[in-house]
């Protein structure tokens, strides 16, 4: 009888556990990362009754969780990719909407500037038209600087998020280490890890995976090791490391991630991938930096083209034109760790050769080598870096002075600082050089039919482009210059003197004379304004194949393409992530209907076991009844 009671009581106990577990499952049905638990039951060891074994009840072997490590790690990988794309697409979207508006955007500003040049060409004497031109030049500068500033804001956001992520990661790593300790001690004491602690650690791992790519190694004692980057140990059993956001080697305002070790910090910014950190770093490297460099490149080309043509013109006061725009110089930043005394001076060689890339110049102990800063690809260059033989690559010319130490590095940024230094240098409308400094004339007394072209300035730096030169025909096929010499006349061919060029065509007669002279008083001349306007549509970038307008269009297109690609990758990854999530959920998630059925099952079994106790009592009573005499 006592055995029977024991069996019934074991059932009661077991089903009580089962009901408790069901209740726990129901209570946690909405808990993030919770894995449903079950009570694993087994029969107790049978007792030998005579020669035949009789069952002795039920035993609660274990309360375990439903989980599938394979699915869980799949989910972590999917989550890592998804978070990366999500952070990337989010930032790309911000970049995209920055350049979205076509009526107030860069292309529109450039068009308005070009139209203002046409306005000056229409009425070169009008101060109002010149004022409009200067305002549009200011407008274009401001537009570029606004973009530059917004891109800077985006960079600050990235910095800020990297800082937050670094401290989150350090916190998560500490949590995992603590959970490792708890799990290991629970497992050594009870022989089994508590499901809820395992769930908690999985949640932390998932959280970590959504921030950066990790490699997880499971240990026999129930603990785990977590590695990041190039195998840096973030968690080793019960101990965790620290990740900090630290200043970039070249640009202190730019943050990267560092792994703290006892010996110092290791820069792991370039080896991290995946997760929101990967997304942020990729965005900065693939979109933000190129975007800054490209608009910088456009600013440099605009400045070069405009200034070059403007210097060839003459303003209302009769002076040669000066520079219209100022632009920031090439940045050559030494690494903080440099130990040599070498300094770098870099200048641009021309917009046509300029590429929108940053370069790292490194001294290897015997010579310099050059790499792309973003991809690390080797860059070939000419020259040795001396004043007479500068290092030339990608549109920059680099002169090194001082003594380098092995390992010294410099970051050369040809266009990144261009816009920050941009300014409109002319404030007086009459200083706009709309006229050409020279004009040509045919003597009124000429009897031949030859005519002279208006003339153009080729070299504004020439010492005397504006002194008068007379070309007189000494016979029908030869002319003298200022009464000297005899030059063969070829109709329509270029005559280059004093840095200008004219053509004479037609049939001259002996004695016919032509002159090229200072365009003094030529306030109504618009030749240089027209030249400026057409210079804007001339190919200046990419080896002179791409006009400014085309460069702007291509730039905005490239931002659009990158954003739309990021969005569609995000959509695709979301499907994968959702699938992984529902696969894990399918195994581990709580289904209330299932729990209801379990509850009924366990309740009935519990009631039946209780009934057995009553039966036992009845049986016992009948024995007592039968023996009472």
């Amino acid at each position, binding site marked *: 009888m006592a055995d029977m009671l024991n069996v019934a009581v074991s059932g009661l106990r077991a089903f009580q556990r089962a009901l408790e577990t069901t209740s726990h499952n129901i209570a946690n049905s909405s808990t993030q990362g919770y894995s449903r638990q079950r009570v694993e039951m087994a029969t107790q060891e049978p007792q030998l009754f005579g020669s035949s074994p009789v069952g002795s009840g039920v035993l609660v072997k274990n309360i375990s969780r439903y989980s599938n490590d394979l699915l869980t790690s799949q989910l972590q990988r999917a989550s890592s990719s998804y978070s990366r794309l999500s952070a990337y697409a989010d930032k790309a979207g911000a970049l995209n909407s920055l350049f979205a508006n076509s009526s107030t955007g860069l292309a529109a500003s450039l*068009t308005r500037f070009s139209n203002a040049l046409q306005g000056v060409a229409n009425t070169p004497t009008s101060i109002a038209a010149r004022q409009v031109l200067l305002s549009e030049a200011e407008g274009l500068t401001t537009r570029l600087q606004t973009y530059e500033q917004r891109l800077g804001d985006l960079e600050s956001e990235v910095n800020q998020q990297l800082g937050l992520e670094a401290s989150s990661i350090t916190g998560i790593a500490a949590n995992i280490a603590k959970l490792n300790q708890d799990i290991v001690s629970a497992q050594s004491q009870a022989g089994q890890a508590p499901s809820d602690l395992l769930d908690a650690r999985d949640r932390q791992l998932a959280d970590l995976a959504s921030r950066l790519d990790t490699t997880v190694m499971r240990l026999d004692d129930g603990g785990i090791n977590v590695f990041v980057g190039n195998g840096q140990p973030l968690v080793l059993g019960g101990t965790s490391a620290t990740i900090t956001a630290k200043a970039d080697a070249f640009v202190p305002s730019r943050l990267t991630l560092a792994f703290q070790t006892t010996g110092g910090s290791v820069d792991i910014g370039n080896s991290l991938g995946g997760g929101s950190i990967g997304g942020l770093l990729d965005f900065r490297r693939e979109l933000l930096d190129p975007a800054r460099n490209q608009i910088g490149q456009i600013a440099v080309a605009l400045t070069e083209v405009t200034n070059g043509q403007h210097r060839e013109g003459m303003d209302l006061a009769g002076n040669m034109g000066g520079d219209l725009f100022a632009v920031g110089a090439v940045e050559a930043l030494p690494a903080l760790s440099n130990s040599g005394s070498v300094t770098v001076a870099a200048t641009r060689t021309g917009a046509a050769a300029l590429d929108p890339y940053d370069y790292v110049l490194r001294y290897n102990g015997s010579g310099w080598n050059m790499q792309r800063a973003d991809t690390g690809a080797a860059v070939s260059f000419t020259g040795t870096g001396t004043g007479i033989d500068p290092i030339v690559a990608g549109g920059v010319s680099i002169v090194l002075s001082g003594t380098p130490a092995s390992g010294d590095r410099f970051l050369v940024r040809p266009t990144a600082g261009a816009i920050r230094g941009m300014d409109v240098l002319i404030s007086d409308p009459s200083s706009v050089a709309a006229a050409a400094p020279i004009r040509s004339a045919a003597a009124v007394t000429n*009897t031949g039919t030859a005519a002279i072209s208006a003339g153009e300035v080729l070299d504004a730096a020439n010492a005397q482009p504006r002194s008068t030169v007379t070309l007189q025909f000494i016979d029908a096929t030869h002319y003298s210059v200022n009464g000297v010499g005899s030059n063969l006349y070829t109709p329509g061919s270029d005559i280059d003197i004093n840095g200008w060029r004219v053509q004479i065509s037609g049939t001259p007669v002996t004695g016919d004379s032509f002159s090229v002279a200072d365009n003094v*008083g*030529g306030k109504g001349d618009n030749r240089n304004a027209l030249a400026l306007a057409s210079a804007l549509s001339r190919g200046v970038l990419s080896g002179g194949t791409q006009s400014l307008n085309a460069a702007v269009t291509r730039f905005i*297109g490239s931002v659009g393409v990158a954003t739309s690609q990021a969005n569609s990758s995000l959509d695709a990854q979301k499907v994968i992530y959702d699938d992984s*999530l529902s696969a894990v959920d399918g195994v581990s998630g*709580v289904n209330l209907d299932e729990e209801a059925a379990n509850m009924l099952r366990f309740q009935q079994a519990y009631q039946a076991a209780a009934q057995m106790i009553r039966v036992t009592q009845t049986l016992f009573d009948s024995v007592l009844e039968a023996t009472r005499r």
Partner: protein
Amino acid sequence: MINRMSSAGLHAAAASQITRQQSLLAKTQSQVGSGLRIQTPADDPVAMMRILSMEQNRAGLEQYEKNSNILANRLSLGEQALADATTLLQDVRERTIQANNGALDELARRSIATDIRARAQELIDIANRRDGNGEYLFAGFSSETQPFSRTAAGVVYAGDQGVRSLQIGADQRVADGFSGTDLFLRIPEGNGAFVTATGVHNGTGAIDSGHIVNAAAWTSSSYSLNFTSGTTWEVRDPLANLVASGNYVDGSAIAFNGAEVVVTGQPVTGDSFTVAPATSKDVFRMLDDLARSLETAGPNASGKSLVSTAVAAGLTQIDQALDHLINTRAVVGTRLNTVDNAQAARDEADEQLQGSIGKLRDLDYAEAISRMNQQLTGLQAAQAAYTRIAQLSLFNFL
């Protein structure tokens, strides 16, 4: 195939479906609201690039339109000045013909001369005309310098030979006027090949402007036509070599080296005329010379013959100037035509660009509305399904 769904997963999936439907609907709604299919470069980068470059083209066309209007305005102003100058010269021509009337007394001739001087001043005013911005029309590049002014030496030109062009198409520039040199200074002299003048004048001989009969035989040089008697003439070159000689018949042609001049009246021995190569003669000097000749000629037959020569030369010169102006006006007409043609081409291009931009960027409303209806139906269905499924629970039956 998912065998098992968690309750939370069921709800989350339904909610995520509904959110997705809502975001699609919001996108469609924003497209319908703005009427634009492409709202940011990311919506369709390739189309956006084309739209941007076409918009740049359109902005360029708009500017060319403005330029053309300014150009047409300036050309019209110039045309008006040319028309006025033409009318003026035609008046002067009539007065000049009147001056040749033998019955005219000296006083009347002087009044005609005064009249011509007044008209010359008027012509200077026309040549100094300005446009709406106060720029001189005919000063070349020196458009803020008054081009023509009268000095003791005659009318002088302070402008230059520059001609400003305006951009009316991507590769099309059209000059917006003429320099004073081109219009008023560079006018062929005499008959274009040579110019005749009176040398020694004791008789009553008058010479016409002459003309070239055989261009191949003509050698440009300064000849002198001398009367060796009242009935014989000779032509000598600058080196005093005899070129031709003959007997003089009043009113018949004297031919030499492919040229012909006609002398009328009665020259006497020693009288001479010059035949010099033509260069160019500005209109102001032409009018001054004409007026001076009319003023200085005496009342007798000799004076009248000088008037006759001056009138003949003056008429030839006026006709040269009128021809020149008429040719120039034809050039203005051609330029205005070019402007009109460019305008037509621009309008066509603009229409095409606008059409292409519209096709790329504008929303197809029919498609968008039907898409929106479809999305609405989808959203409603998802919501209905969710509310039904969410109610299901075994616990309801316990």
